[in-house]
């Protein structure tokens, strides 16, 4: 399989994960951890398929999944913001519950052939020598993932709203004293993040793993998405990069399997996740090292620069429940 095809399939198979990771990035940058991704993706995948199957309207289906994701996220947000519950606790319970709920409600739709997102090459761009086949010979979902990446970056660092978003995650009390309605923002961004997670679910059941079934095929993605957000240091571009890296690992797994039949396929199956964890460890060590590096980047060796690049600091108030009656 030549490199263009390889890259193209990396790009496309990363798209749904991009939705999940960047959605979660929004949520976590606002200071909320929504751990329920794995369940949410399945539930919204189910909803998306059911809607598409009954209405044959993909737009509607994606919308429905998005709303499902937002609905689940709202449980986490409301629970932690207005009732001071542990975000991790709710998130984890929801992960399991939503999964079973999806299997329970979707049972009747198992393995039915349903509508799918159409392939759609972009007329002129697709003919560009190498770029074309890699980036512009996919479908709307993949293109949407590009849009999301660029949008998130611009939104985070170039707009006032993005600044406020980061402020909420950094120090909610201070944000409040600056006249920002922190809870409202955190709620909003949790829902917004959940919405994208929902879309990721839909893009599985309507494109990448068409149809519904038990198992659907998107199981486990949610957890990986959560890890990638850390890996990407809560920065939209780095997160996107991490997502592509993971998609690459997955694909390589399958390629190697066919070229090294003596190694059991299971090894390749489980490889990507531990590798992500390994990367987290490396990042940890690197961030310890970089603490001692001198601040002027021009004095750094390439490795040191890489370490500095990998170094991450989470939003200061991530996952903490600011729960004063004053708010």
């Amino acid at each position, binding site marked *: 399989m030549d490199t263009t095809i390889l890259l193209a399939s990396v790009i496309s198979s990363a798209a749904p994960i991009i939705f999940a990771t960047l959605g979660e990035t929004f949520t976590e940058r606002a200071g909320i951890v929504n751990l329920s991704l794995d369940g949410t993706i399945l539930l919204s995948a189910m909803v998306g398929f059911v809607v598409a199957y009954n209405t044959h309207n993909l737009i509607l289906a994606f919308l429905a999944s998005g709303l499902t994701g937002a609905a689940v996220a709202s449980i986490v947000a409301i629970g932690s913001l207005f009732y001071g519950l542990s975000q991790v606790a709710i998130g984890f319970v929801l992960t399991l519950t939503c999964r079973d709920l999806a299997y329970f409600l979707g049972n009747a739709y198992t*393995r039915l052939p349903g509508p799918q997102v159409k392939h759609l090459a972009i007329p002129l761009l697709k003919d560009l020598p190498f770029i074309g086949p890699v980036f512009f010979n996919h479908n709307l979902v993949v293109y949407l993932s590009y849009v999301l990446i660029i949008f998130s970056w611009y939104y985070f660092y170039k707009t006032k709203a993005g600044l406020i978003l980061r402020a909420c995650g950094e120090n909610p009390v201070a944000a409040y004293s600056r006249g920002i309605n922190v809870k409202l923002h955190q709620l909003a961004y949790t829902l917004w993040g959940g919405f994208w997670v929902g879309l990721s679910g839909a893009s599985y059941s309507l494109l990448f793993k068409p149809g519904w079934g038990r198992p659907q095929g998107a199981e486990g993605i949610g957890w990986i998405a959560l890890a990638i957000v850390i890996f990407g240091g809560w920065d939209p571009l780095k997160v996107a990069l991490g997502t592509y890296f993971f998609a690459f690992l997955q694909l390589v797994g399958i390629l190697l399997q*066919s070229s090294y039949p003596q190694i*059991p396929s299971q090894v390749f*199956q489980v490889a990507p996740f531990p590798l992500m964890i390994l990367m987290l460890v490396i990042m940890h060590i690197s961030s310890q090292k970089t603490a001692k590096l001198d601040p002027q980047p021009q004095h750094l060796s390439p490795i040191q620069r890489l370490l500095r690049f990998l170094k991450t600091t989470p939003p200061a108030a991530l996952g903490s429940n600011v729960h004063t009656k004053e708010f």
Partner: protein
Amino acid sequence: AQEKPFTFALLLVGPYNDHGWSQAHYEAGKALEQESHGKLKMIYIDKVNPADRPGITVPQLVDELVDQGAKLIFATSDDMKDGIREAALQHPDVYFVHISGDDVLQGKAPKNLSNLMGKMIYGKMMAGFMAGLVTKTGKIAYLGPLINDETRRLANSAYLGARYAWTKVLHKDPKKLKFSVNWIGFWFNIPGVTADPTQVTKNFFNSGYDVVISGIDTTEAIVVAKQFRNQGKQVWAIPYDYKKSCQEGGDVCLGVPYFNWKPGYKHFINAVLNKTWQQEWLWMPPYWQDINNKDRSPIGFIVGPTVNKKIKTALANFIEQLSSKQIQLFKGPLYYQDGSVFLRAGEIASDKKIWYSKQLLKGMQGPSSAK
């Protein structure tokens, strides 16, 4: 005032509506139930696999079914082997049929346990034959489930079919035919556990294979093939197990070898009803007069909706010659992958020899058993 119906039960490995192996069993049972005008009652539990029903064992489920009044229980998956044997010992007054098993051949089975299987080898030969005829690149892929005697047997049959079409019908160079097998690890996708059939199939098509013969219970092959066709690529797929699974495929589907469990089930139900049960290991051949006969033929092959006349006729007389034994594909000389002899020159394989296929055949790529 009729006496209360005779209850038989199914243990389905997948969802009853999986458009594959499990649904084939389910519909056979349903059909019998309906035709019996209330004399027969079918109950079933689906998704009987540890991944879907964590912590539940086959004997436990059999207890449930017996509580529900089941007198005859069909266990429809290879990996219920041990469980069903255990259950049969626990319930000597209930009859059991283990599909695709060989406990009887092995002499491990108690009296009340029989084995049933259809001679899908012919179905796979036809599938292989079709693939051999249509492939442009000469690269045929076989999407294999887990590795055991049965799956090796079927993969081998498909290969022989393809090779026949390639060499004897198209008269092409056997060296130019590439037939590789990729095992995903189970009968259907279990994320994080099995290889992902969607990805595997995509990978096949991306690396130049243009026909994928599915050996797994679910329809990924067809779905992916359709996606590639929509992108304007010339690819085909051949699903498995279930009569109707070709319909969703449209023109990428060359046809489907499927099981029709009605005759087999009927045989054992009557055996119990007429008290003529004796333990048997039943490997039912197709009903050659009409392999798609709903009541007589345990296996069949339905040609894809858009396959052209020429190929249809070719297949027709291939089947004709198979039934008249003019073509004997399991005929020596045949060698295993490691070069050891499977059939000496001129030797025609016995059922038992075919049943216990120890390796893939020479000329096929892919592992013969997990390392």
